[in-house]
């Protein structure tokens, strides 16, 4: 019943599932053989990343304020400004700056941070892994939970669980992460109870899993922010499958409901699940910015906020590119995974 409004992936899948018996109205893509499809998809991903990199570069260059002046602040002298601009390579033509940056990215040399003068990778690598760990935890918590929640609601449509979960999820869906996080801090870490730490602490030589107690609130915040949406999407996907012609057919043939469900319905929902996971990951990659800042979590989100303020361009560029890349790559994998996992789509490729 819920028609998610901004999920093209799902609509695509639902429609392809639903229209299985009919002539596909937009067959252009799916008629390509698998290899060609994957190749085209990869090419498109690379092209997108290229344009993304240009855009990031142009946008960061357009940030207000002269980078060297901001780094030097009140102490700036004309000599130091000139020196710093040449050190940072800001005195070169902008195209040269871009090509040297992007070739550095490709070869793994991300340049040096403007503020700390240390290599971007060495100062951010531990933050990247911390953020990935946070994403992983949030994913591990939210994905199975939202899939279970959504499927259960779909299988018991219009029963009590369905009604109530949809109501609660809808309410939670709209909340910004920092509101959820602030609320959790009030309840679990400060005003009401002090069960959990309000901020995350980690010594640099420790991996993030060394502080599992501290990671609870950030993970729960992210999970709460993601869960409603994915659960609603899952529910809709399963409902669509259950309503499809072939499930109907299987039922008419007199198959037991359990067989219908496990043999026919759920395998066909695997495709949408890939998309859902991709959405989930892409969503979390954006959500970490606020959550990390809120909980003082040493990941890329809080680093990004610092770097934008300090106009530390190499850091902003690297982080923005990474976040965009996560998005592009997960979508790419999801699209390919969907086609591979959905028998109907796969066979139609050939």
């Amino acid at each position: 019943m819920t028609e998610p409004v901004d999920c093209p992936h799902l609509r695509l899948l639902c429609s392809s599932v639903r229209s299985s018996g009919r002539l596909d109205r937009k067959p252009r893509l799916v008629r390509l053989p698998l290899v060609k499809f994957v190749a085209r998809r990869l090419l498109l991903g690379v092209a997108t990343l290229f344009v993304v990199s240009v855009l990031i570069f142009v946008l960061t260059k357009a940030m207000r304020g002269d980078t060297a002046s901001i780094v030097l602040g009140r102490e700036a002298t004309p000599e130091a400004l000139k020196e710093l601009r040449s050190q940072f390579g800001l005195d070169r033509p902008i195209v040269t700056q871009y090509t040297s940056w992007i070739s550095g990215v490709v070869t793994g040399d991300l340049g040096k941070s403007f503020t700390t003068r240390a290599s971007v990778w060495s100062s951010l690598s531990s933050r990247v892994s911390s953020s990935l760990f946070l994403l992983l935890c949030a994913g591990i918590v939210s994905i199975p939970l939202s899939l279970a929640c959504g499927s259960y609601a779909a299988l018991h449509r219009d029963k009590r669980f369905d009604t109530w979960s949809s109501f609660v999820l809808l309410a939670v869906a709209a909340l910004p992460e920092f509101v959820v996080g602030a609320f959790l801090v009030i309840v679990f870490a400060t005003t009401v109870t002090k069960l959990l730490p309000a901020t995350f602490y980690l010594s640099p030589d420790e991996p993030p899993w060394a502080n599992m107690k501290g990671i609870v609130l950030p993970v729960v915040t992210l999970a709460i922010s993601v869960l409603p949406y994915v659960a609603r999407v899952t529910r809709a996907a399963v409902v669509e499958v259950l309503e499809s012609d072939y499930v109907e057919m299987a039922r008419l043939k007199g198959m037991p409901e359990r067989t219908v469900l496990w043999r026919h319905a759920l395998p066909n929902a695997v495709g949408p699940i890939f998309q859902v996971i991709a959405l989930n990951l892409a969503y979390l990659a954006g959500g970490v910015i606020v959550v990390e800042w809120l909980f003082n979590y040493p990941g890329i989100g809080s680093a990004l906020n610092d770097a934008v303020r300090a106009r530390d361009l190499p850091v902003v560029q690297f982080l923005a590119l990474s976040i965009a890349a996560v998005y592009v790559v997960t979508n790419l994998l999801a699209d390919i995974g969907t086609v591979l996992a959905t028998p109907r789509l796969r066979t139609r490729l050939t």
Partner: protein
Amino acid sequence: MSGMSGMSGMSSVEAVSAAQPVQPVQQPASVLRQALRLRRTQFGLAIMALLMLVAVFGRYFAPFGEVQVVGDGLPNERHAAGTLFGSDYFGSDVWSRFLYGGRPILIQAFFATLLGVGLGSTLGMLAAYRRGRFDEILMRSLDVLLSFPQLLLSLVVIAMFSPSALVVIFTVGLTTMPRVARVIRGAALQVTERDFVAAADALGESRLRVLFSEILPNVSAALLVEANLRLTYSIGLIASLGFLGFTPDLSAASWGVMIQQNRSALTFQPWGVLLPVFAIALLTIGTGFFADGIGRTVAGIDRGKADA
């Protein structure tokens, strides 16, 4: 909310319309009327209306000024004399700041949504109508924008200009635009294939006219759903930006900023955080329910016709 709105994903696989097969024109007015029969729409509207009243008119009931000092002037006093909820990080009245703080968010979110939905739907319809290379290039460029979480893009764009109300509106509006464009394009694709559009084309009507007098009325229901949904996200995004400190006027009370400013006193003077947290929560829940009610109504009508 950033990522939430970033979810309309990038995919080479073409999206098909939200409103499944061909449907008759849904008048927004009738959709609204039907939607209001749903309990969740009523619930959403009630909360939304209440919070909007507080946001818009609250300041006229504020016992103190926006920056006025209260009690003996000490910051973070839970029981500052003459106040309902104590004083904030700067010795001002929490309750008055709260009453002042809703309007900026609401106004900025409203205009940002208007801009985003206006531009997005125009582009979406144009893409669906012109098809071909124009469509392809436009949608691919929007895909590029979509690969950034809305919050990330907003941070960078705000850093390009001084954070004024106008910049926040444009930033949030422009990052909303590609998301709307995708959905409206999907809805419009159905319409453009229909006879009356071809007829209008054949009659040599101007493209603009076809776009706005033939296609627009037919996607208006989808537009209504989208607009409401985007309003919810915009409120969340603007509040988040305020929370991160990217806000036009730090001295002006604003719910998102209030949470950030009073966070350090959370353990002994929680009201400065609690009030705005509840307000933003309720406001987004209200708009969320309202949007969902309308969405259900539109989808329900669609399905009814399609299944028949």
